[in-house]
């Protein structure tokens, strides 16, 4: 790096900071190691001038994700690692009941406002109406979503009237 004049009060030395330009287009990894996409923008608070969040680009057909700095665990020149697995990534995952039967796939997720706290998932499958499953009925999230044994999926086909 070129020799430079340093004019700082309490701030870190230049060597201890990150160049945001280098952080663009680097990969973003979720807590469980899933590569979510690449950083397309780094957003800064307009007056307080601290990092607010990043925009993750996920390709042409997928919606980008704006994720707040409070969900970011570590930044480096190679990756941004998140503290969480964003629940929006559950879309398309298989849902299995306690017997291992395929109940459908996640069509949408309902979160508490804009946070990563999940309230319910909307599940759908062919010939069956979409239905929601509350988080209290979900046992685990992984490769697929496993439901608790006390939850019984009501079969409702699209030709049946909604209540």
């Amino acid at each position: 790096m070129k020799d430079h004049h340093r004019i700082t009060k309490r701030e870190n030395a230049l060597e201890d900071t990150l160049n945001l330009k280098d952080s663009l287009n680097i990969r973003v990894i979720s807590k469980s190691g899933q590569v979510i996409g690449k950083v397309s923008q780094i957003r800064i608070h307009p007056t307080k001038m601290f990092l607010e969040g990043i925009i993750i680009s996920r390709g042409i057909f997928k919606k980008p994700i704006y994720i707040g700095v409070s969900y970011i665990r570590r930044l480096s020149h190679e990756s941004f690692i998140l503290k969480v697995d964003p629940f929006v990534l559950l879309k398309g995952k298989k849902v299995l009941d306690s017997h291992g039967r395929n109940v459908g796939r996640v069509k949408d997720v309902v979160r508490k406002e804009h946070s990563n706290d999940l309230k319910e998932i909307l599940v759908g499958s062919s010939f069956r109406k979409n239905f929601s499953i509350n988080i209290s009925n979900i046992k685990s999230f992984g490769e697929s979503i496993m439901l608790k044994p006390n939850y019984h999926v009501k079969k409702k086909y699209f030709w049946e009237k909604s209540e």
Partner: protein
Amino acid sequence: MSKKSISGKNLSRGITSDDILGKEVIDLDGRFIGVVEKVLIDPIDLDFIGIEVDKGFLKKGLSIGKSYIDRISEVAVFLKIKVVYEIKGMTVFDKMGGIIGTVSDIELWGEKNKIKNIYIRQGMIKKELVAPSDFIDSIAYNVILTVKKKRLLEYNAKLGN
């Protein structure tokens, strides 16, 4: 026609090997591991000791001990564990999120589902690296280490890799 029984106890709660064979095997993460190919029984104790899983065409089979089985439902056999063999082929990231390589092999503690070392392939030319289990932070979609790549290389240099 009603069947005769000389079991000495009520066998109506039992399930048969036919009920288990062909069932899907699902791990703790909800990952499909394969289908039950064999039911293993101890020839001396006559106890059920585990299952053999067919993982599909060209893939090696897998034996799973009874202690790793959570329950057997109408449709599937549920495991209590994540099968560590499933991490083969996963990408390994260092602490900073830099890619190190892919898991080429694993070494277990005896025959337990517990990792001792993982072997990381870095490409065609570079040498394979070894990472002990205490270097592993998390295993889910991929593997994230607790150390930076530099530390891993130092560890391997000490081992003479």
